[in-house]
C-alpha cells in the first residue's frame, strides 16, 4: 500500500471524516480517523477527546492563536514519503519565555512524523525503535548512527495553542524531554510516568520546507544558529582541511623536487678593489666579467646576489648591471650593506650587517656583461671606509619565500573556515545549558 495512492476503500480512509466541534459546532475534518486521540477546533480552540461516543470537549488552548505557516491539510513529500499536515501546536518551555511550533505529519502506512520550527530553524522528526537507553536520564552523550550525540537540552513543554488532530492527549501530556545533538541530527527522548519514546530529528533547510509544502508566505527569519543546523552542507571544515592538507603535502613534494633539481651554480665569486675618482669623492665603475647564465626548464632562471664589504659604522653599496650581449636588454639592481656598532651605558650595541643577499628572478638565459657601480660615504668620521668588496653570483637557487607564501595561501582557507566553524559551534551552544564552550 502506498498511503494516499490507496484504491481500496474501507481499508484506510481516503477521505477525511467530517465531525462537528462539540463547543462551537464548527465542522472539523479528521484525516487520521480513528487514530486521533484529541482534536483542537480551529475556530474556538477547544480541545476535544476522541471517544467511542464522539468528541468530548475538554480545555481551551487559544491563549496565543496563531495561523500555521503550513495549513492543515497540506501535503508534502519528505524522504520519499507523502505526508499530510494534520495538526499544529505552539509550545512554550516551562519557566521560559520562548515558543516553538510543531506540525504533526501523517501518512496512513508510515504513521506520524513531526516538523518543528524554532527561530526559523526547521527539524524533521521521526520515531525510532532501534535505539533505547532505557530510562537513563543523566547521560551527557549517546552513540547512534556511528555518531556521538551530546546532551543539549532538558525541558517540559506547555501547549499555548493547537489546531488539528493529535495521537495523544495534548492538554494532559506532562512528558519531560531530553535532546541530544550531532548536527544535522537530534535525538529526543520523551518520557512520562507511563511511557517513553525516542525520536530522530534531522535539520531541514527553510527553502526545502518551503518547496516541499509549496509555502507562498514568507518563511520565518533565521535567528542565531539552530540546534542541529550544519555548519556547511557542501563546504565543511573537515573537507577544507582534508583538501588543504593534501595540497600542503603536494606543495612540499614539489618543493623537494625543485630543491633536488636546483643547480646552485656559482657564476661569480670575486673580491673587487674600489678606486676613488680623483677630486670627486665618488668611486670609479668596475667592469666585471662576462657570465654565461643558463636556464632551468623554461628558458629563465634566478640569480642570487651576495655582497659582503668590511663596513663598520658606515655603509657600502654597489649597482650591478647585467647587459645581455645578444639582445641588449639590461637588468640593473642595487645592493648595499651597512653596519653600526657602539657602546651605550656600558653595553655594546650593533645594527645592520656587513653582508646581504638578494634574489633576481626570471633572468632569461644568455651571455651577460657585468658592470659594477660601487658607492660609499664620501668622508669617514672615526671609521675606515671599505676599500674592497666581495661579490658572489649564484644561478638557480631555491626560493623559500615562494614555498612559505604558497603554504600560507593554501592554509588560509582552512584557517578561515576553522575560525568560522569555531564561532558557529560556539553560537550553536549558546542556547544550551550544557555548552562545552563555557567554563565551570
Amino acid at each position, binding site marked *: 500500500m502506498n498511503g494516499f495512492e490507496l484504491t481500496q476503500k474501507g481499508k484506510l480512509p481516503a477521505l477525511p471524516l467530517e465531525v462537528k466541534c462539540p463547543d462551537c459546532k464548527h465542522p472539523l475534518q479528521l484525516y487520521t480517523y480513528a487514530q486521533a486521540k484529541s482534536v483542537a477546533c480551529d475556530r474556538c480552540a477547544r480541545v476535544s477527546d476522541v471517544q467511542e461516543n464522539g468528541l468530548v470537549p475538554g480545555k481551551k488552548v487559544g491563549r496565543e492563536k496563531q495561523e500555521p505557516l503550513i495549513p492543515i491539510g497540506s501535503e508534502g513529500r519528505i524522504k520519499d514519503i507523502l505526508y499530510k499536515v494534520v495538526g499544529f501546536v505552539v509550545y512554550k518551555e516551562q519557566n521560559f519565555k520562548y515558543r516553538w511550533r510543531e506540525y504533526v505529519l501523517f501518512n496512513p502506512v508510515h504513521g506520524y512524523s513531526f516538523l518543528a520550527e524554532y527561530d526559523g530553524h526547521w527539524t524533521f522528526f521521526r520515531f525510532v525503535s532501534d535505539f533505547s537507553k532505557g530510562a537513563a536520564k543523566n547521560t551527557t552523550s549517546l552513540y547512534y548512527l556511528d555518531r556521538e550525540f551530546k546532551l543539549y537540552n532538558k525541558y517540559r513543554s506547555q501547549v499555548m495553542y493547537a489546531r488539528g488532530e493529535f495521537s495523544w492527549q495534548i492538554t494532559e501530556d506532562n512528558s519531560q524531554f531530553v535532546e541530544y545533538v550531532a548536527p544535522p541530527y537530534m535525538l529526543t527522548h520523551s518520557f512520562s510516568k507511563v511511557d517513553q519514546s525516542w525520536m530522530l530529528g534531522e535539520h531541514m533547510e527553510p527553502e526545502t520546507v518551503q518547496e516541499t509544502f509549496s509555502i507562498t508566505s514568507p518563511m520565518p527569519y533565521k535567528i542565531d544558529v539552530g540546534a542541529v543546523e550544519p555548519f556547511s552542507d*557542501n*563546504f565543511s571544515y573537515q*573537507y*577544507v582541511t582534508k*583538501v*588543504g592538507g593534501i*595540497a600542503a603535502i*603536494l*606543495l612540499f613534494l*614539489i*618543493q623537494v623536487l*625543485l630543491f633536488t633539481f636546483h643547480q646552485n651554480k656559482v657564476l661569480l665569486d670575486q673580491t673587487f678593489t674600489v678606486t676613488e675618482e680623483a677630486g670627486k669623492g*665618488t668611486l670609479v*665603475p668596475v*667592469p666585471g666579467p662576462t657570465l654565461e647564465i643558463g636556464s*632551468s*626548464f*623554461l*628558458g*629563465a*632562471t*634566478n*640569480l642570487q646576489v651576495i655582497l659582503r664589504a668590511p663596513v663598520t659604522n658606515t*655603509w657600502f*653599496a654597489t*649597482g650591478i*648591471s647585467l*647587459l645581455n650581449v645578444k*639582445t*641588449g*636588454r*639590461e*637588468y*640593473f*639592481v*642595487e*645592493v*648595499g650593506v*651597512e653596519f*653600526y656598532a657602539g657602546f651605550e651605558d656600558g653595553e655594546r650595541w650593533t645594527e645592520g650587517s656587513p653582508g646581504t643577499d*638578494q*634574489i*633576481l*628572478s*626570471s*633572468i632569461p638565459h644568455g651571455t651577460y656583461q657585468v*658592470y659594477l*657601480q660601487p*658607492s660609499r660615504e664620501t668622508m669617514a668620521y672615526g671609521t675606515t671606509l671599505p676599500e674592497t668588496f666581495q661579490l658572489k653570483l649564484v644561478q*638557480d637557487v*631555491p*626560493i623559500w*619565500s*615562494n*614555498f612559505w*607564501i*604558497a603554504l600560507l*595561501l*593554501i592554509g588560509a*582557507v582552512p584557517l578561515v573556515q576553522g575560525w568560522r566553524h569555531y564561532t558557529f559551534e560556539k553560537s550553536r551552544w549558546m542556547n544550551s545549558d550544557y555548552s562545552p564552550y563555557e567554563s565551570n
Partner: protein
Amino acid sequence: MNKYIKQIFLGYILLVLGYFSYAGLTGTRFLGDDKEESEAGGSSGSSGGYRRHTFYHK
C-alpha cells in the same frame, strides 16, 4: 555561488600549486624583486654609465 564553492576552492588550490610550480621552473619570485629592466641604449645605465643610487642608508 554556494553550489560551486567546492569547485572554486579546488580551482584556487590548483592555481596556487600551478603557479608555484611555474615559479620554481622559471626562477620567479612571488614577491618580485628590485631589479630594473631596460632595452639596449635606452638608459643612461647601460654600458657601465653612472646611475642614480637608491640604496637607503643611515
